[in-house]
């Protein structure tokens, strides 16, 4: 059976070059980078060159990169670590309503620790209005965290504008750039942020390798205490092969970004235009213009996402959905709900995430397979028969 992986939102496939770069660090160069002998030196040199590669990807300096174990850890570190380090100034933080759970739940934890958290809403495209951030800034605000892009609906947020506001008010700005770093141009100076999270498995690097870029001079509280790894900000023996891989993946992403984007945009735009023209009652979710190059997200009305996913999977297509039924909590995606998409429609969420390995034939295959699946489920749907009888 044909197999088409279109879930590059969840994770991407390691490239051959990245794997090649990692391999020696599993055995030959197995040393602990903290050690003062040849084995230690080799590992240390490896992670320092990876640090340069990751710094280059986002326009920062190597000293500003702190390697972590995942994007989730980077976000936890930024939210909790920055809040704890600056709580003398105040205990108020601001995040958007569509942040990833690693930010949302970190903020919730801060709430339990006595911090006050304000949520910034989004419009129907998932866009944050910078003025909404401004309106929420108070004397005791110490941190604003707005994601660079939302992977579920693809919307890219106006971080450059938000950073003008946070600079004026001297509030630290963190951005979760896990969906963008390594995918679209990300430059910390241009964005004007103070902290930025990224994860290598989002750009064809290994899992277990994230990083937090923290502007020189910004204080942070470590969350993991122990040795002096990562300048005393993140203790624990480094996951050397993963770090090496993230460096190589960053270098490749930096060098081939324009061609990758072009490739992804072509595939994305075909799907964005052809799904609504082949299937009735489809809503495109996310922003029409400010959109991640590989993201095509929809809500298919009258049917539910998990059922679609299962039927697509039976045809060899892997995608994901924000339907309540696919989430363990049985709640519709907080992102779709924040965008004021009605629950019944949010249930039909489908998310296609293109990657560099996908081709135009993959789009053809989706367009061949999806319409009969939708038809089959609609034939079973009481909402659809009601609609046919009386309209919406």
């Amino acid at each position, binding site marked *: 059976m044909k197999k088409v992986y279109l879930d590059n939102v969840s994770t991407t496939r390691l490239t051959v070059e990245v794997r090649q770069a990692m391999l020696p660090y599993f055995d030959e160069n197995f040393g602990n980078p903290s050690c003062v002998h040849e084995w230690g030196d080799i590992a240390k040199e490896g992670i320092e060159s990876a640090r340069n590669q990751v710094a280059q990807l986002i326009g920062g300096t190597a000293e500003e990169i702190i390697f972590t174990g995942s994007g989730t850890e980077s976000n936890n570190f930024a939210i909790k670590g920055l809040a704890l380090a600056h709580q003398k100034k105040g205990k108020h933080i601001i995040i958007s309503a569509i942040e990833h759970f690693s930010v949302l739940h970190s903020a919730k934890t801060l709430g339990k620790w006595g911090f006050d958290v304000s949520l910034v809403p989004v419009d129907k495209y998932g866009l944050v209005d910078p003025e909404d951030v401004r309106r929420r800034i108070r004397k005791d605000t110490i941190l604003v965290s707005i994601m660079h892009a939302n992977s579920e609906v693809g919307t890219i947020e106006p971080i450059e504008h938000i950073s003008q506001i946070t600079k004026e008010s001297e509030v630290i700005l963190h951005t979760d750039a896990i969906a963008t770093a390594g995918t679209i141009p990300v430059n910390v100076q241009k964005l004007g942020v103070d902290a930025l999270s990224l994860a290598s498995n989002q750009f064809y690097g290994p899992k277990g390798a994230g990083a937090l870029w923290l502007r020189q001079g910004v204080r942070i509280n470590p969350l993991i205490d122990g040795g002096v790894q990562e300048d005393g900000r993140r203790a624990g023996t480094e996951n050397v092969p993963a770090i090496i891989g993230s460096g190589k993946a960053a270098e490749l992403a930096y060098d081939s970004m324009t061609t990758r984007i072009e490739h992804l945009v072509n595939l994305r735009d075909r799907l964005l235009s052809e799904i609504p023209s082949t299937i009735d009652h489809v809503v495109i979710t996310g922003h029409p213009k400010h959109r991640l190059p590989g993201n095509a997200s929809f809500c298919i009305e009258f049917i539910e996402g998990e059922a679609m996913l299962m039927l697509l999977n039976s045809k060899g297509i892997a995608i994901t959905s924000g339907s309540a039924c696919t989430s363990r909590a049985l709640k*519709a995606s907080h992102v779709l709900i924040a965008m004021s998409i009605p629950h019944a429609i949010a249930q039909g969420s489908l998310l296609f995430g293109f990657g560099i390995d996908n081709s135009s034939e993959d789009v053809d295959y989706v367009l061949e397979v999806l319409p009969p699946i939708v038809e089959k489920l609609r034939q079973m749907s009481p909402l659809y028969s009601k609609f046919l009888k009386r309209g919406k």
Partner: protein
Amino acid sequence: MAIYSERVMEHFMNPRNVGEIENPDGIGEVGNPICGDMMTFYIKVKDNRLDDVKFKTFGCGAAIAVSSMASEMAKGKTLDEVMKITPELVADELDGLPKQKLHCSNLGAQALHKAIENYRENHKKGKDNDRE
């Protein structure tokens, strides 16, 4: 999908008794308050037995498999027998459901029972009319 048993997958891929019945003797419609899904059962009754059962479902793979299984279990049974079909029995027949999907099995049994209650109500009215 590894989270589901083979029987769930089989019923999901080839659901039995999908559709509506024209002029049904009873209709049972239930909504799922947890995830917002919906199930409608249509029944035809003959000699106190379910002569025909059809359903429509808006919901996850488990919800569709549950409707299909519940419809199969109910067909041909007496009304009282159908009233004894519980969510647990439906889930058992499907070789179990993942924990977070057990609520979907409530829907199947509920919708069936509601259809029978609906039939009994209609039927009672019918009898009253006969007497006049």
